[in-house]
């Protein structure tokens, strides 16, 4: 059984098999929100995932960042997980940054070490994150001179693997400063975010690597680019095959369970 699972995952990935991905309303809502942000808005991207979920969340970060860089927006990268800053750098190395320049249009402010810093940032970014990941004084960056406080942000998206980052942003940034929030989540925790999406507190939810594939497809539809940039689209056949296999296994296990129960009843 393990061998079958290994095959249904590895063969499609190695053969680059692809499949059309229907777009879910949560992904569409996030895409439309970013697409309709006013020019020169400040966006905060928060990398709040550990290295263990890179296959699920990193493709999301790549496609969303690519979209943001294709629009006239300013971006600050932060991280509530200590693995976040290098992962943000990896995303920046992957995407096409166009004519955006570091310090003016975007900056990587690094790790937010605790909730206290997150609470303080809306009133003064430079006080709580005094240097960026390159060692530049934050206060001297043109983007920070233009947006000295995070309360000026129009939108924050957290790529979150354990809920805590999203709850923090909802409590401290949206609750107090009405900043729009979205989340890119792993498949296991995404259902827990649906109350926030249904109440309008979240402008969109990307679910797992499928969310990244949907987003990649939307970028391709509008900009005719970026297909394959995150690797998510080429994983969809493997994802489908593994999910169908697991459903088949559950059906098989239950069929065996009912047959054995009926047999044992007859024997009694």
């Amino acid at each position, binding site marked *: *059984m*393990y061998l079958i*699972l290994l095959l249904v*995952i590895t063969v499609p990935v190695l053969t680059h098999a692809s*499949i*059309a991905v*229907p777009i879910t*309303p949560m992904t569409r809502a996030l895409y439309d929100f970013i697409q309709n942000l006013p020019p020169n808005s400040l966006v905060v991207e928060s990398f709040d995932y550990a*290295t*263990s*979920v*890179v*296959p699920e969340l990193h493709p999301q970060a790549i496609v969303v960042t690519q979209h943001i860089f294709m629009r006239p927006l300013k971006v600050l990268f932060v991280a509530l997980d*200590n693995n976040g*800053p*290098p992962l*943000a750098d990896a995303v920046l190395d992957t995407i096409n940054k166009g004519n955006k320049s570091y310090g003016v249009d975007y900056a*990587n402010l*690094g*790790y937010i*070490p*605790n909730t*206290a*810093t997150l*609470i*303080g940032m809306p*009133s*003064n970014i430079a*006080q*709580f994150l005094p240097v960026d*990941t*390159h*060692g*530049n004084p934050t206060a001297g960056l043109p983007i920070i001179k233009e947006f000295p406080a995070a309360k000026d942000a129009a939108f924050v998206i957290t790529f979150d693997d354990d809920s805590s980052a999203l709850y923090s942003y909802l409590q401290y940034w949206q609750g*107090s400063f009405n900043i729009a929030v979205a989340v890119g989540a792993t498949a296991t925790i995404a*259902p*827990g975010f*649906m*109350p926030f999406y*249904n109440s309008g507190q979240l402008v969109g939810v990307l*679910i*797992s690597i*499928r969310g990244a*594939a949907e987003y990649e497809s939307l970028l391709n539809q509008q900009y005719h680019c970026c297909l394959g940039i995150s690797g998510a689209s080429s994983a*969809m056949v493997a*994802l*489908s*095959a*593994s*999910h*169908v*296999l*697991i*459903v088949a*296994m*559950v059906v098989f*296990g*239950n069929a*065996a*369970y009912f047959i054995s129960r009926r047999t044992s009843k007859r024997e009694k």
Partner: protein
Amino acid sequence: MSSDKKMTREELGLQIIIFSLGFFYAIVYYIAVPGTVNLQAVSDQLLAYITAMLTAAFAIGVINLTRVHVNNIKRKRATWKYSVILIICLYAMAIFSMIASPYALDPQAAVIPASVIAFSTPIWEFLYYKILVNINSTIFSLLAFFIASAAYRAFKARSLESTILLAAGLLVVLGQAPIADLVWPGFGAIRDWILAFPNTAGQRGILIGAALGILVFSVRRLFRYPWGD
């Protein structure tokens, strides 16, 4: 210790600090004193001190870990070889991270020579992107095999409740597979409905219950630190 027991002087002092800070942070959101004291600025400054305190706590953790594992090695305990690996990994990653990474202490080479940073950068990138990311992703990916195994061993329709849960789970799993949507678009619609209604209803109950619990615990803690009870 029962909550009826009298506090010691030290406990009382700590309780006064907890109450004062907790009360201050609770009211700072609700009141503003224009022209006199900027409570928000005081609050921000106090928050900055928390960063320093947590950093010190983290350092204590590293010292403790080192002491435990160095003792393991000195006394040649059963797992001493693993302690050697842990100490090497801990300090190698920490040193290279402090020299060449987004956490570098001196990224602009004001003190550390640029040649040392240039030498360390590819090593740190290899350790982080090629080793750490892949090892962690691999371990997490083993979950797929656990789920596959559990699929036919544990997910049984033994009662009405478990049958409903199983059916809902299977429909969400199928809806998440793009191929199922292509076979019949209804799978996606059913998944969205399950997530939007039954799931949201259940999650809201859990969230509200947890929030009330946190509120009660916070108030209790403000007025009386639960010394061991």
